[in-house]
């Protein structure tokens, strides 16, 4: 408990953009076959440092088989919410869930070079207190830390729907389920909100049997993965509207609301349209009558390919789907970054007009067929995946693994974990930095990145950027 608010808490997104830049990044390291322990890599991001672009510390957990994926902070700029009146938490702990084991680690990163495990929450406690399993997205909210889960109860996580649970942000005790009325929501993936406007949006991937052993082709072709987004009355904990994006829009994943809380819109990425293999971005917004709407505003076409060059899963299609697996929005709400994991491309769209995004920049790296090399001449395994933008919007970092079993299906011949960085031009445009290329320890892959002091997918701002 501090006497003053943590200096990394910012009232507005604009103030966060003007804050000092990041010195460290925290990146998930995961063992794809569960033979090693997973961990968090601390990466030096200070270009003036001798160890710039190197892993300078690792927190390796004692268990195996956790499969780290997404993670987040115990506290962020949402602590400055005028409703709390108490802005004195520290941004100090990373909440790191294992989506395969359902175990949650709380990692103390006060001194990034000495980061260590502070507390471990065993899966049994999570099951008993929430009825959920396979914890995933983390956001710091009004009453504590909100965690989305991908599975319900039971061995395979299908006993009851998955949902969100709340954790105490100081003691890390699990409090319980969030939902009072979930409506038709029966699958889960990502969620985010607008705190002053008091709404939340959540998305759907699929149930554990649909992803843990790999993508289930029959389920995909019969449109059985998630294709709806849900709108919630955040404080009433009630699903107020569900929008079906159309059953062919399989896997509605990342939810990215505008950072400025006066805006009532945001984006959602769809992995694949089963009618034409396109990837898509939907813009969702609240209309003048208070109803939520969603419209497809970006489509990315598949690229024809020789079946010889394709993994078994895709041979029948003679094309590489873009596979939009992650998106991220800069703090000024201007650029949306879209990872096309199948094509091996990172797109930058100018979304100043959220209904008419314009492609502003593009980087090619990796890819199922293309196998673009990094400008430093090295290979990049898989394709661009988890993307994170620096607070000032000038640097975009990304890693390459999607999810262990899915990597193996789409990229059966690739292996490795890499993290790269691209610089953003003054008027848009994206260029890979030749000198930033982090190769992860052998046998470990890389997933989500968190930047010291918060980034573009951690912090919720409670005041407008005026």
């Amino acid at each position, binding site marked *: 408990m501090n006497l003053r608010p943590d200096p990394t808490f910012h009232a507005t997104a604009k103030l966060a953009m003007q804050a000092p830049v990041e010195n460290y990044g925290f990146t998930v390291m995961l063992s794809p076959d569960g033979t090693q322990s997973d961990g968090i890599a601390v990466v030096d991001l200070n270009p003036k440092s001798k160890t710039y672009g190197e892993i300078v510390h690792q927190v390796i957990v004692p268990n195996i088989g956790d499969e780290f994926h997404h993670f987040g902070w115990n506290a962020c700029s949402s602590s400055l919410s005028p*409703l709390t009146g108490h802005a004195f938490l520290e941004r100090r702990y990373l909440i790191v869930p294992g989506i395969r084991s359902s175990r949650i680690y709380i990692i103390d990163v006060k001194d990034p070079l000495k980061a260590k495990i502070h507390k471990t929450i065993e899966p049994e406690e999570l099951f008993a207190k929430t009825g959920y399993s396979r914890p995933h997205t983390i956001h710091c909210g009004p009453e504590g830390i909100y965690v989305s889960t991908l599975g319900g109860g039971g061995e395979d996580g299908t006993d009851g729907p998955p949902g969100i649970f709340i954790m105490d942000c100081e003691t890390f005790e699990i409090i319980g389920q969030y939902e009072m009325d979930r409506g038709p929501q029966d699958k889960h993936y990502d969620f985010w909100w607008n705190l002053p406007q008091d709404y939340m949006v959540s998305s759907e991937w699929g149930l554990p049997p649909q992803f843990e052993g790999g993508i289930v082709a029959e389920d995909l072709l019969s449109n059985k993965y998630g294709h709806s987004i849900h709108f919630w009355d955040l404080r009433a904990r009630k699903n107020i509207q569900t929008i079906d994006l159309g059953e062919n829009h399989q896997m509605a994943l990342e939810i990215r609301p505008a950072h400025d809380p006066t805006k009532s819109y945001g984006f959602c990425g769809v992995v694949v349209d089963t009618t034409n293999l396109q990837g898509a971005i939907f813009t969702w917004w609240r209309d003048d009558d208070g109803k939520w709407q969603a419209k497809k505003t970006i489509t990315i076409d598949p690229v024809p390919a020789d079946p010889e060059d394709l993994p078994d899963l895709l041979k029948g299609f003679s094309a590489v789907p873009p596979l939009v697996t992650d998106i991220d929005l800069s703090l000024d709400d201007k650029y949306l970054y879209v990872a096309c994991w199948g094509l091996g491309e990172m797109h930058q769209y100018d979304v100043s007009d959220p209904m008419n995004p314009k492609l502003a920049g593009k980087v090619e790296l990796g890819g199922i067929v293309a196998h673009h090399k990094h400008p430093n001449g090295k290979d990049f395994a898989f394709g661009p995946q988890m993307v994170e933008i620096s607070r000032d919007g000038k640097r975009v970092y990304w890693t390459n693994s999607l999810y262990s079993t899915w990597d193996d299906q789409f990229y059966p011949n690739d292996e490795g974990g890499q993290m790269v960085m691209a610089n953003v031009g003054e008027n848009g445009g994206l260029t890979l930095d030749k000198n930033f290329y982090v190769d992860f320890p052998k046998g470990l892959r890389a997933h989500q990145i968190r930047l010291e002091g918060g980034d573009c997918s951690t912090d919720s701002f409670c005041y407008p950027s005026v």
Partner: protein
Amino acid sequence: MAEDVISVTALWWAVIFSGLYHGINPGMGWPLAVSAALMERKHTAMAKAIAALAFGHFLAMTAILLPFSLMLFLVEWARDIRIGAGLLVIAMGIYLLVNRRHPKFLARVHPSRLALWSFLAAMAHGAGLMLVPIFLGICSIDNGDAGHQAVQTLMSGNIVTAFAVATVHTLAMTAAGGLIAVIIYLWLGLKFLSKTWFNLDIVWALSLVLVGLLGVIAAYAGY
């Protein structure tokens, strides 16, 4: 008599001072007024928000003071009531010192229900209790030689005093909080929101203990 006038004046200043003190505490809501003006992009939204916060605070003050004003008709128990009230305020202060957890239910109030939020925030922090020893002090001087007055007169007098104390306190609170909100909104900008935000938790709890102690001492001393 002159002595009484001085102590009544001092107590009324204490009412005003406690109002200013509550007003500058961000926990009593001035950041909400800034946020309301910015979200709606108009000055009038701030005035409305400040009014709603003031109303909620006023209700919380009267909700605490009125029961005490009614109790005071038990004239012969007046001293014990003052001592009991002082101890209660001390207990609240100690509770807030020991239990440093924040009242989470406040975060569940809808952001537009500012009066409700303000009422609950004041209740949860014992803001009304801080006024009780001061209020009881004023009543005991006002009532003076209470034995000769009709219970009816005494009670209505005390109720009027309760409303007066709550009103003066709330006006002072609104002036202080409103001033900070206006300065941040018009001149300093949101960067100062986090800079002016101090953790008053311990100071607040200690203030309750102090006010309670003074109340108990005053009752013993027969002021």
